[in-house]
């Protein structure tokens, strides 16, 4: 893994007006460095601030204080629209534009960047192959004609269309059935390695994080509670982290006990 910092968060904070008038600190002084080609999963329950942190990265929302850098440069100094075009973003349940075909959805960012149509067209086919969808069968379909898993594959293809170095994923596989989810997760992990991407993925599922990510950051109440490889986290004495890790551990134990001593789990 190359050394250095691809994405850096330094003392980042963001608060929103709450329902009772007081401000809620959604992200509260988070500092975190992500290395090039690293796959980082941010885990936390709803309201932990993980989605806010992701949105701050490509300036869908603006930080109140602190500094976010991409390859050493402050994101505050770059044009937010250009910043977003340089990063892939996979939305929860796809976020595909319902009135555009699969091909138009995938080609949207290159189109915004002014890439010639023919080049976009061949890029779309290439990307559909990459996410394992048959181009001739799928490129002219509308999003509502696809299954949930296919939609999310198109979402991944769209994020990769402009060849970004960074991909941000907001609970990308959350709404899928377990089987589709595992397949898609593994496929994406393979793409991540093959293309040398830096990926930040939000999830509330610790099992998914352990299976896909190089490193896991645990958030709660807007703060970064713990971070490290799955093995490092296992040694954490933070009560919340231990609680989060209990579920995958229990699942693994049950699985191995059910499939017997010589079960191939």
């Amino acid at each position, binding site marked *: 893994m190359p050394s250095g910092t691809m994405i850096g968060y330094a003392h980042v904070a963001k608060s929103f007006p709450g329902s009772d008038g007081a401000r809620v600190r959604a992200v509260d002084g988070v500092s975190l460095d992500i290395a090039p080609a690293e796959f980082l999963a941010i885990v936390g329950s709803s309201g932990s601030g993980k989605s806010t942190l992701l949105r701050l990265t490509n300036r869908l929302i603006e930080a109140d204080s602190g500094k976010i850098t991409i390859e050493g440069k402050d994101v505050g100094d770059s044009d937010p629209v250009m910043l977003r075009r340089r990063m892939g*973003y996979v939305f929860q349940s796809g976020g595909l534009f319902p009135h555009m075909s699969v091909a138009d959805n995938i080609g949207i960012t290159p189109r915004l960047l002014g890439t010639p149509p023919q080049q976009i067209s061949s890029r779309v086919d290439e990307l559909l192959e990459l996410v394992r969808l048959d181009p001739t069968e799928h490129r002219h379909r509308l999003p509502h004609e696809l299954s949930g898993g296919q939609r999310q594959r198109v979402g991944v293809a769209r994020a990769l269309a402009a060849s970004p170095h960074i991909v941000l994923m907001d609970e990308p596989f959350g709404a899928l059935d377990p089987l589709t989810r595992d397949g898609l997760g593994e496929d994406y992990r393979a793409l991540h390695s093959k293309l040398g991407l830096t990926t930040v993925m939000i999830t509330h599922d610790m099992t998914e994080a352990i299976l896909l990510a190089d490193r896991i950051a645990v958030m709660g109440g807007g703060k970064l509670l713990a971070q490290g490889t799955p093995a490092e986290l296992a040694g954490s004495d933070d009560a919340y982290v231990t609680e989060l890790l209990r579920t995958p551990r229990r699942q693994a134990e049950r699985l191995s006990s059910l499939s017997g001593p010589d079960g191939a789990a």
Partner: protein
Amino acid sequence: MSPFGDPRVPEALGHLPDYLGNHVRVSLAALLLGLIVSLPLAILTRRHPLMRGALLAFASVVQTVPGLALLALFYPLLLAASALTLAWLGFSFSAFGFLPAMLALALYSMLPVLRNSITALNGIDAGLKEAAQGVGMTERQSLFMIELPLALPVIMAGIRTAAVWVIGTATLSTPIGQTSLGNYIFAGLQTQNWVFVLFGCVASAVLALAVDQLLGLIENGLRRRSRVRTALGGIGLAALLAATLVPSMARPVSSYAVGAKTFTEQYVLSALISDRLRDSGLAATTRAGLGSSVIFEALAASDVDVYVDYSGTLWANQFHHSDVRPREELLKELQRLLAKQDITLLGEIGFENAYALVMPRKRAEALGIRSIADLAARAPGLSIAGDYEFFSRPEWIGLRQAYGLSFRAQRQMQPDFMYAAVASGEVDVIAGYTSDGLIAKYDLVVLDDPRHAIPPYDAVLLLAPRRKDDERLKAALEPLLGRIDIATMREANLRASGNDATSSPDAVARWLWERIGKR
């Protein structure tokens, strides 16, 4: 007689290209203007809830104004604006017909378009808007590539509602001088030609339905993302527009506009004038159903070329005189006053159509009423009906002052209905017209005016300023001057008040020409 054998049907059909073409033209222009204003407003206010609320409130208020009133309001408004532009910028424009009708209808079309556009744009899934931002769209790109296309079916539904409203309301633009399918309805109502009324209703309903269905097809196509439906709807709409607009465009441009006010006699006389012009090889179109002052202003602005007015009406209404002068003197003075505005008083037609207080002969005898002076003593126990303008006219004020008239109740009525109303005893007295044939028909009596409170009302031909040196026009109208006496006009009016095939204004005009042409 079968409905297809009725000569009023081919007569109605003959007007169709003109009426329908004008109806479609003003509706289309109004709708387009409404869209050009409403859509950007909806887009601009999408992030400003306060402005959005104010805008919707304004459009709703406009909607509560009755269509006829809204149309009527634009006429004086534009008249004033035209006077201002003339004073400041050196040009004026016509406050009559197309412009006021289009503006009022455009205002009318705004509510459904605004409401649907605002609702649709607000209802776009926040996740999709974030996705648009996330893939790197600017606000503008997000609006045009994502939000508007997704809002389009709902916006289209609003346009559809607006189109139906505008087409329906456009029938009310006849009184401010815009030819429309309403011409059938207004003319039919005034002359009790129910074939015309029915024809106008059916034609505008069919037009509204056809447009509604075609826009519905487009809306459906957009909703289901079916290019075929959208294209079919578009082609159908274009075909409909072409079919309705092209025939009316073929009309000669330099045709003479013959005006008519809102009562039977005027319809007959305008038909008679049109016939005379055509016989002299001049093209004529009728602008019928115009209000008393609207038609005069239209003539002064040369939007109407010729019509018949009454000396007393001009004296009191246009020149605001309340004194009553002898007949000849009044005509001379009028001629002078009109000439100042470049309007030609070509001459008298021969009869007088004065306002008169009228009641059933038997009732008058029983009450011992012979003159308005006798009536004044009984008036507090009686009710009176007049046409829509009578009670706001200076003559009424003059009458009340001269005789101290004060009635128990006063009502406004469609002129052709008031005679039946007084004959049946529904009202006691009406302000009728001396040339009306119904006076004899219902055995009514015209009460004497011993104090000469009512000015003379000689029917006179007026020509627009731009026609003041038009010798062909004058020659064509010459045979009408001094030729129609009161008895002939009464008979013509009586014929026109019937409800059969021979009572259409055109048929009566031909009968009238037979009568006076032979002399």
